[in-house]
């Protein structure tokens, strides 16, 4: 266990080098967010006051996007998938096959430390931004919502990591995984509720999406926070999320064991 704590420490030191980079990233990311919020305000401005869009007031809609930004800072993978793919391609994983260090856990520690630093740095611009939007910001619906949000965000982070890890393992089979990663990312961007709340889609489509793991990466935790999920659905949703995490873990292990058989340890 101690060795993984050590990895965590190294991860924190390594990512601290990029703190200014992170700050710029987080601040620049707010520009399109602000654009989207302005567009929504204009849409609400053209409606009678107090009107809702799919059950969202303007405040709830603004909060939705801010929470997406927050969940994203906490869970999104930064460079992890590229680094894993590069490790495989360049033969860097050979050392992990010889040492008593599990590559999966090693990567997971690096992911956790990266997220911890990124969130801390990103909190500065996001908090300033949230302060400017404070009149449109809503608090968690109640204690259950707050706890449910915390639990589902945690599992969303696990799912994000598993997704990135498994797709990066494609590097065992193909030379350049970047296109596959971008395609998966595009799917995730829309199907996880990043671009807009999934309830804005035709109901049949929303239902269909809820059968995939994507909404549990982002839409579900945010909906819980906003109190749009009743207790029964919350329990069911958390259970579904847990099932996806277990399935994802199984898939990651399976793909790794198949991939390692094809591994040619390029570059020695």
């Amino acid at each position, binding site marked *: 266990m101690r060795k993984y704590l050590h990895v965590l420490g190294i991860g924190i030191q390594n990512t601290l080098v990029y703190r200014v*980079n992170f700050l*710029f*990233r987080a601040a*620049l*990311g707010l*520009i*399109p967010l*602000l*654009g989207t919020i*302005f*567009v929504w305000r*204009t*849409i609400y401005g*053209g*409606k009678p006051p107090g009107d809702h*869009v*799919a059950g969202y007031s303007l405040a709830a809609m603004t909060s939705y996007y801010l929470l997406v930004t927050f969940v994203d800072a906490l869970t999104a993978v930064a460079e992890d998938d590229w680094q894993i793919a590069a490790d495989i391609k360049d033969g860097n994983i050979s050392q992990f096959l010889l040492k008593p260090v599990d590559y999966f856990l090693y990567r997971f520690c690096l992911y956790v430390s990266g997220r911890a630093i990124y969130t801390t740095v990103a909190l500065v611009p996001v908090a300033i931004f949230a302060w400017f939007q404070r009149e449109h910001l809503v608090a968690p619906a109640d204690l259950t919502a707050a706890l449910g949000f915390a639990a589902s965000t945690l599992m969303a982070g696990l799912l994000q990591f598993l997704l990135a890890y498994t797709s990066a393992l494609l590097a065992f089979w193909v030379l*350049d995984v970047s*296109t*596959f990663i*971008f*395609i998966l990312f*595009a799917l995730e*961007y*829309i199907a996880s509720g990043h*671009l*807009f709340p999934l309830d*804005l*889609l*035709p109901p049949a489509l929303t239902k269909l999406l809820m059968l995939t793991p994507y909404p549990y990466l982002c839409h579900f935790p945010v909906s819980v926070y906003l109190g749009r999920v009743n207790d029964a659905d919350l329990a069911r949703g958390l259970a579904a999320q847990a099932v996806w995490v277990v399935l994802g873990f199984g898939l990651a292990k399976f793909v790794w064991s198949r991939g390692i058989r094809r591994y040619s340890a390029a570059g020695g």
Partner: protein
Amino acid sequence: MTTLRRYFSLWLDLCRISLVQEMMFKVNFLLWIVVEALWFGLQLAFMGVLYRHTDSIGGWSKWEVILLSGCSQFLMQLVSIVFMTNLTNLSELIRTGKLDFFLLLPVNARFLISTRKFEVGNCINALLGLAVMAWALAELRHVPTVAQVCGFVLLCGAGLVVHYALMTMLATMAFWTVRSQGIVWGYYNLFNIARLPDSAFPRGVFKAVFTFALPMLLVSNVPSKLLVGRLESPREMLLLVGMAGLGFALSEWLWRRALRQYTSASS
């Protein structure tokens, strides 16, 4: 005139070399086209979803906004085809000192560095942007006049110059910071503003910054508005053209300043 001809034939040669290089990895080449098209589809889906819940955004109808998205995509792909990769590589050229090689050649160094690699794959996606615009025009039942089309082409040219100037200035920062790989990522965030209708933004700091400092709300809005006849006064056209001229002059000034203090590396 002969100078222009010489640079044009040089550019054609660079395009040919890029094409040959690109064809070495055919599957990858095709997959990148899919990736770009997918992201464009996402933007259109977003607009489609918005208009499920409203009829107009700041006076823009659904198909007008789709036309704007198409125009924005077209410009962004043109930037990717000609400049994006090259300007992103500038920081690498500076870091390794390979920039020396370009400075020694008997051509304008900025020209060569900006246009060295031609991204063939993005041509398909630029055409896709134009196709979506044509589709939107058909839905709007609007046939633009010859003057509107000519004006549109010219204004797109001005928009392209604005994008190029801003990107060059961002990339030139690498002379001082050495690292600037974040440029592309940062610039994608700005591109996101360009496809939104300008009237969705209230008068204020945000609108002022993105009109006069980083004129993202002009580059695709003005050509689109001209094409569908939404342009109220020629002021906006003049503003875009003026911004293009000013941007280019500023970027050239910054480029020269940066070159003057370039010290090369590892030699």
